[in-house]
């Protein structure tokens, strides 16, 4: 929908209101969760309706040494190759919040440490996805903060690409091992 400008005194109709509600800056698409799972699929969330998406995720680990990652998928398959992704972590527990750790992968987009379910401490990330449903590479950039099972707190920046020209329709959240709890919400960026 093109941006519509109203004149002073003009009546805002129900149709106009509904049109704006469905085309606001970020448009809600879907939410879901998985508890004590090794993989969580969100299917049918990317389409030609939007080019770019915002995803808000929180995770809590059921295992030690766990990092949260995600992959793109179609209705039938998950892309497990052709990623280039890295996240850099700053340790917030230390006085100067030094750069301390990282994750990197060619099989998934990486985030950060995945929280600690036993302590009810969650890791929260927010990231944008560009063009997942177009026949071109898909890009990701984002940030997060959360706890690792060593009880240190981190913030991180994350980014990556998936270079297949697949038109993805979904996303799979995974840990690097074991199980975790995941909650997500997905929004689309208004097109115009």
């Amino acid at each position, binding site marked *: 929908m093109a941006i519509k400008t109203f004149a002073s005194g003009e009546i805002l109709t129900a149709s106009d209101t509904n049109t704006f509600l469905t085309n606001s800056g970020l448009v809600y*698409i*879907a939410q*879901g*969760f*998985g*508890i*004590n*799972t*090794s*993989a*969580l*699929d*969100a*299917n*049918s*969330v990317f389409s030609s309706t939007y080019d770019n998406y915002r995803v808000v995720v929180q995770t809590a680990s059921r*295992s*030690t*040494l*766990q*990092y949260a*990652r995600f*992959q793109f998928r179609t209705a039938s*398959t*998950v892309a*497990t*190759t052709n990623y280039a992704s890295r996240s850099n972590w700053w340790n917030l527990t230390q006085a100067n919040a030094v750069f301390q750790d*990282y*994750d*990197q*992968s*060619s*099989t*998934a987009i990486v985030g950060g440490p995945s929280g600690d379910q036993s302590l009810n401490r969650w890791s929260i990330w927010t990231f944008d996805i560009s063009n997942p449903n177009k026949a071109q590479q898909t890009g990701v950039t984002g940030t997060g903060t959360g706890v690792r099972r060593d009880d240190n707190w981190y913030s991180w920046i994350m980014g990556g690409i998936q270079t297949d020209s697949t038109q993805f329709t979904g996303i799979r959240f*995974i*840990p*690097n*091992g*074991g*199980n975790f709890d995941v909650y997500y919400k997905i929004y689309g960026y208004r097109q115009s």
Partner: protein
Amino acid sequence: MTKPNITINDHETGETIEREMTDDEYAELIASGWTEEPQDDREP
């Protein structure tokens, strides 16, 4: 052998499924570097 669990939210049908992974899904998970006990396998 018991395989890990997967949760599937299909936002077209509104259906949510929680079940043990199929062989293909388990193969995808292993191909992604997943291990039963998480390992510090990060690439340099």
